[in-house]
């Protein structure tokens, strides 16, 4: 293990009593999966039981598949008995869809539709519908690469809509944006970082008013904000960029702490076991309990790198994927434990999820590698083919996995 090259600068800290709680995986078999990577961004449905074999010509353990309009490279969320996702379609992918599907039978429950008022352009492999929607259990927030954002209630009725590119015309990136929103304490937080109007903002969940706006580095960034729960119960929003790592108070946008750090700009950070794990070249772990002096670095390991997928923690191990290599490290020391190449995998953009003791990760050709996680090794126990490109991260709810393919939504569950 070697500290990678990033410079640490003096950390500005504010005394907010940053005692940090140990985050345990709070997902239960029946819980919602309300945003990108699920509750606490943990990506883990620890009590869920999923089939290891599914798909293929026999359509084994496919509960249903629902074709949706247009395309998406984002993920899906689960709120109650609704699986909710976005699409973009039509000329230049300007048509923006928000779609709720009945989780029991795959029937479309409601749809909303808008037209992109910001720049809809993106790389051919991406889509305007790239961010994963988010929900606070009362509203659903749909955000798109074109910086259009809509909030609907759980019946699909429009609550509010904003064209952030109308307000900030230079916001955008013609490769395509993909940062997913998070919602916390009645505030929907978006991170729009690009070479033009580059900012993060907190929008009032009830009416869309911009409660705060924070100027951000003028560099492209596709990573997503992350909710981090502190030991005293305070929840903060952590954001990363190619220049910094910072935490903000969700209601005010007040910067609680900030570090100058060259973070990765595609995979996102997350917190677990009182530590903040930050993709930054390799993986860097911070001790969130170091009150008053900022999150002090515990370790880093450049062999635990992530090019696109966000890392996750299960038990006493942290897992990362670089290209097609799944790596496991010790949660407390950062020492590498093992790595496994996912043989014949194509590009992997979809962040993995864990159910029980198995990790599920999709390559972009729609093959899902199921890896049994052990302390000494990761064993690929199954490779499943959906036959459809998958670039978004799945959701796990109950004993089912919901997978957003580029053109359809799948429910995978033991039959």
């Amino acid at each position, binding site marked *: 293990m070697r500290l990678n090259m990033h410079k640490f600068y003096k950390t500005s800290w504010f005394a907010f009593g940053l005692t940090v709680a140990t985050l345990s995986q709070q997902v239960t078999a029946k819980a919602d999966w309300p945003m990108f990577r699920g509750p606490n961004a943990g990506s883990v449905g620890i009590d869920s039981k999923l089939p290891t074999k599914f798909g293929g010509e026999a359509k084994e353990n496919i509960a249903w598949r629902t074709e949706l*309009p247009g395309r998406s490279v984002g993920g899906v969320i689960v709120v109650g008995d609704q699986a909710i996702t976005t699409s973009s379609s*039509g*000329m*230049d992918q*300007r*048509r923006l869809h928000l779609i709720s599907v009945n989780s029991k039978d795959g029937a479309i429950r*409601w*749809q*909303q*539709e*808008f*037209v992109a*008022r910001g720049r809809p*352009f*993106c*790389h051919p492999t991406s889509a305007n519908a790239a961010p994963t929607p988010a929900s606070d259990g009362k509203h659903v927030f749909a955000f798109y690469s074109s910086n*259009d954002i*809509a909030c*609907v209630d759980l019946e*699909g*009725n*429009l*609550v*509010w*809509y*904003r*064209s952030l590119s*109308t*307000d900030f015309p*230079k916001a955008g*990136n*013609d*490769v*395509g944006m993909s940062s997913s929103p998070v919602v916390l304490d009645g505030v929907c937080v978006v991170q729009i970082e*690009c*070479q*033009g109007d580059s900012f993060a903002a907190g929008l009032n969940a*009830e*009416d*869309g*008013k*911009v409660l705060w706006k924070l100027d951000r580095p003028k560099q*492209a960034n596709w990573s997503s904000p992350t909710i981090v729960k502190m030991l005293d119960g305070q929840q903060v929003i952590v954001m990363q960029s190619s220049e910094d790592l910072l935490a903000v108070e969700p209601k005010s946008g007040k910067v609680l702490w900030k570090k100058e750090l060259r973070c990765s700009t595609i995979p996102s950070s997350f917190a677990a076991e009182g530590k903040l794990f930050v993709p930054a070249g390799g993986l860097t772990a911070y001790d969130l309990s170091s009150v008053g002096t900022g999150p002090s670095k515990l370790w880093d390991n450049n062999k635990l790198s992530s090019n696109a997928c966000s890392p996750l923690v299960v038990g006493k191990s942290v897992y990362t994927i670089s290209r097609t290599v799944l790596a496991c490290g010790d949660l407390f020391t950062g020492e590498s434990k093992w790595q496994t190449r996912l043989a014949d995998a194509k590009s992997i953009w979809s962040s993995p999820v864990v159910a029980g003791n198995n990790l599920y990760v999709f390559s972009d050709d729609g093959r899902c590698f199921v890896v049994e996680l052990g302390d000494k090794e990761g064993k690929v126990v199954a490779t499943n083919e959906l036959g459809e490109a998958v670039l978004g991260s799945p959701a796990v709810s109950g004993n089912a996995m919901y997978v957003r393919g580029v053109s359809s939504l799948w429910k995978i569950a033991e039959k």
Partner: protein
Amino acid sequence: MLVRLKTRTIRRAAIFAVGFSISATVLDPVDVRADGSLDSIKVLQTLTSGDDSAVVASNAIKQLSKANDVTLIQSLTAMKGATAVGRNWLSGLANSLYRKSGKSQTAELTKFLADASQDGEARYLVFQWLTTNNDVLRKELLAKMNQDSSPELRFLAIDEAMKVKLESKDLSVLLDAARHPSQVVSIIEKLKELGVTIDQSKQLGFLPEWRLIGPFDNVGTANFDKVFPVETDWAKGVVKDEYQGKTEAVTWKQHTTAEPAGVVDLAELYNKEKGCIIYAAAEFDSEKDQDAEVRLGCINGNKIWVNGKLVLSNEVYHTGAQIDQYAEPIRLKAGKNQILVKVCQNEQKEQWAQDYKFQVRICDSTGKAILTKGR
């Protein structure tokens, strides 16, 4: 249909207080008689941007939901003449109303779709509702829509028509109808397979003739906003033959691009120079005074002036490029119009950051080429 509502929802005074000017002529003369709902609809129609706008609109849509007296057709009709932001609010309202009662209004919706004077985005919405799970109807409707006033419906219709093998005569009809560059290019390729050659650059209205000068200094991407003498002289119409460039005196060079999409490859013409600026000037001879659009594709930092007026400015490097990436309305005067493009290259070393090129076309607001006189 007459609808009465006893409670007013949004007061005009409150609306004006947050900076809206509501035009009484915006709302189409639909049969809305409920004062409160009428005001709320007007609020949605006239929305611009900003926080106040969002909050007022959020209240307005709540009132409309409570009042429950605006019909689906009224919400769709109101999209005509509404602002771009307002149309999305109204679309949101219409989607909710369609879920409640739309399936019983097929006749009204069919009539609405057939009315080309209605808002194109509203008609597209209706088209989707009517044709969900009805591929026969979809094809039947699209067969008549390749000249539709809605760019989106026209795009769908041409896409559908292209799915079958066509004779050159039919392709020529589609070429005349097509506005989106991807469809124009696709039709030209199919015509070529049938032995018919079309000048793609001309068909799309790309400017092939340029005078280029540079490189000027942009080391450290410091000079995107620096006003070099070329800019000031060009604005005055007194351009010199020679200027001090990045390292030496530079002169204008004539360049004609034969690239079908009008691409001028500055990396090739200027020896892959990095940290630099090139100016490109073109003259456009317009038949008449007319509204037009200048459309630019450029992966580098860029500015465009038309007749001395700055119309585009994008300090963005290497984040994608395509035809019509940037578009801006302009006013062409009859006779000679002067176009100046500033193209800025940075110093990134990655292989994918070496492109240094641009393409400009002049067209109407639908994307149909407007050609310089004599072309």
